[in-house]
């Protein structure tokens, strides 16, 4: 069995699972309760927050727990729009964002906000100049993903951050869900970023835990009001086991990220060696500095991505079409469309995404299994 679908979700790390279990058994009390049971849970939550903050290089008071990457994105975008609507009604994003961002933007358009969806170039990267050109005096938010989930293109987050230094009142949000733990942090983290979204199940942590980095003093309306948890910005009884387990998962991921990146990029290179120059194959995730080490997306012209997914699955190889979220009634990949890839080719795209659990041997096995499938379609004329 080969699992090459780690950008959809990852298997929880065994040590992280142990933590989840142990905390569930011992420290399940409500962190807001004033008794000793509650106090211990509270301390665990706060220690985890600090640990995550340290790993990100931010302050503990700037880390807010949510239920997912999706919630973090929704909150960052809609919370900004509502708290800054008096200052303006214009938001800037790209055409290749995750649906959590795109659909939040669409909802805001229904409420009267104006959104600019910036195009990307043929490689799937937005130009920093286009961000600057799109800025108007009504712009309140720029939301750009760090690493695209469909092809792994890395966006010029730091350059855009430099540009936004000149526009201090604009909120700068970065969806970092696919970027964290990929040895890209020093390149991507920029002090101008105000808001950043994360999701634990993408780095071998548990489901149902996300977090949002929010820079101190940046105004953000809550999406969920109530008991006042998370500095009164995200209410709901805290998920102590999930939070502690996520902090551990992040630590383990970051401690090993260099090695993981080397390992995954080696897998990616092995596969690229095989795929490059093969008739009918289009590669969207080159071995380049502006592409993440863990994602490899390519298409076999004339064969639908779903077909490839199922044929590989028969060989116990698990990959996905370009994004799990919209896999079901896929009308084509948003990112590939934005890159102006021909529909016929885009429909054939599959995404392989790697984790530290994957090996070169698996890449070789993939190649031999894929080659059989490839041969079956060889009589299709390219």
């Amino acid at each position, binding site marked *: 069995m080969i*699992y090459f*679908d780690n950008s*959809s*979700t990852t*298997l929880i790390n065994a040590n992280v*699972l142990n933590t*989840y279990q142990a905390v*569930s*058994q011992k420290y*399940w*009390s*409500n962190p*807001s*309760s*004033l*008794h*000793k*049971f*509650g106090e211990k849970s*509270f301390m665990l939550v706060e220690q985890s927050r600090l640990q995550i903050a340290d790993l990100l290089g931010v302050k503990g008071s700037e880390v807010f727990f*949510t*239920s*997912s*990457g*999706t*919630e973090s994105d*929704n909150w960052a975008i809609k919370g900004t729009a509502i708290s800054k609507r008096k200052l303006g009604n214009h938001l800037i994003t790209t055409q290749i964002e995750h*649906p*959590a*961002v795109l*659909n*939040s933007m*669409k*909802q805001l358009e229904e409420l009267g906000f104006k959104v600019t969806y910036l195009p990307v170039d043929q490689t799937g990267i937005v130009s920093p100049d286009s961000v600057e050109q799109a800025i108007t005096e009504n712009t309140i938010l720029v939301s750009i993903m760090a690493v695209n989930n469909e092809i792994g293109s890395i966006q010029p987050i730091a350059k855009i951050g430099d540009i936004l230094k000149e526009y201090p009142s604009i909120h700068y949000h970065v969806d970092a869900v696919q970027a964290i733990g990929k040895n890209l942090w020093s390149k991507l983290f920029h002090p101008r970023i105000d808001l950043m979204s994360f999701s634990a199940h993408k780095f071998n942590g*548990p*489901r*149902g835990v996300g977090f949002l980095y929010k820079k101190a003093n940046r105004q953000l309306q809550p*999406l*969920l*009001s*109530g*008991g*006042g*948890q998370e500095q009164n910005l995200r*209410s*709901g*009884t*805290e*998920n*102590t086991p*999930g939070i502690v387990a996520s902090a551990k998962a992040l630590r383990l991921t970051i401690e090993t990220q260099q090695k993981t990146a080397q390992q995954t990029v080696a897998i990616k290179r092995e596969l690229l060696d095989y795929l490059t120059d093969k008739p009918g194959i289009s590669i969207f995730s080159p071995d380049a500095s502006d592409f993440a080490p863990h994602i490899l997306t390519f298409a076999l012209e004339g064969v639908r991505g779903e077909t490839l997914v*199922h044929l590989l699955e028969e060989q116990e190889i*698990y990959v*996905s079409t370009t994004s*799990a*979220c*919209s*896999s*079901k*009634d896929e009308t084509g990949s948003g990112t590939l469309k934005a890159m102006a890839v021909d529909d016929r080719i885009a429909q054939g795209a599959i995404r392989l995404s790697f984790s530290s659990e994957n090996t070169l041997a698996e890449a070789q096995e993939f190649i031999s299994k894929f080659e059989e499938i490839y041969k079956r379609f060889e009589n299709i004329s390219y």
Partner: protein
Amino acid sequence: MNSLYFDNAATTAMRPEVIEEMTDKMTTIYGNASSTHEFGRQAKKVLDDSREILAKSINATDKEIIITSGGTESNNMALRQVAQIKQNEGNHIISTVIEHPSVLRTLEYLEGLGFEVTYLPVNLQGNLSTEDVKSALRPDTILVSLMSVNNETGAKLPIHEIGELLKDHQAVFHTDAVQSYGLDSIDVRRDHIDLLSTSAHKINGPKFIGFLYLNKDIFVKPLILGGEQESKRRAGTENVPAIAGFAKAVSLLDEKSKQDKQDFFKKLTTQLLSNLKENHVAFEVNGQLSDNHSYHVLNLWIKGVETSRLQMNLDLNHIAVSGGSACSAGSLEPSHVLTAMYGENSSRVNESIRISFGEFNTESEVEALSNQVVKISSKLLTKNK
């Protein structure tokens, strides 16, 4: 000494079966339920089976269950999204002064958007009558949101009667059932409930998971948008292990075990009160122990004994009770529920504790609790003199 936990209305211990179920799902099913491959399908099967259990538990259909991150999100989604979709039909909302902050703060937010909210007062029992709702109801009322059971006093609101009342009115009926789910028999058809919020961690399930029941004839837009999960009504990669854990907790509660639990909590209540009486503790129950009371919560006025001192002293003796609701971390604000019942100048507001029972409590634990309350309150009262 063993620690005694009497704060089950704040949260409950996870059942071992639930932890086991979650561990199993975490280690065996790691597909994203939206993925089209085998792992995705396995995850989806778990999701479907769990949803069926949740739906059945309130006599709803599978499609009417939207999984959320808990009671707070369910309440926020219910109120914000119903208000948004119904705003052309009116802007009046009815609720009560004793709701959980996740309802109250959300209603305040809606007031800021121009909605008009009537907060019904409660009587000395911490309850209200169907008549109260009836007289507040207007042609432009679009939403009535009432909790099923109050988290601080255990008062059971007349949900069934109010459901009957609202049946022929345009107003949508939402109930925050977080404190009643798993203890009371809930039937959304019988009670004419349109939306209902639950939270798993109150019934020995996992944290950060719950559901919102949404009647099939009511359409609301999502609060959290993104992928197409939950039939496009709540986006985010499904938390399959927690959902399975939640369903496990629910499946362990049949109608008989719910009744048994209520009977057991009633017995513990009676035991505690008679112990206190025998030892001449001057106390009164806040609210009323009657058919309209959920016996997992017991709110006691211990006359002359300050809430925080009693609570802290019990804590020093390894007994956890609450001095209000566990919410805004670290602060002990006077309870808005007791204030609503007795007025802000009543001594009850500053001299009451909430004891809440769970299925892991025992009679001997209650014995220990009452002994400590007797000891500590007499010590504190002597000091006061």
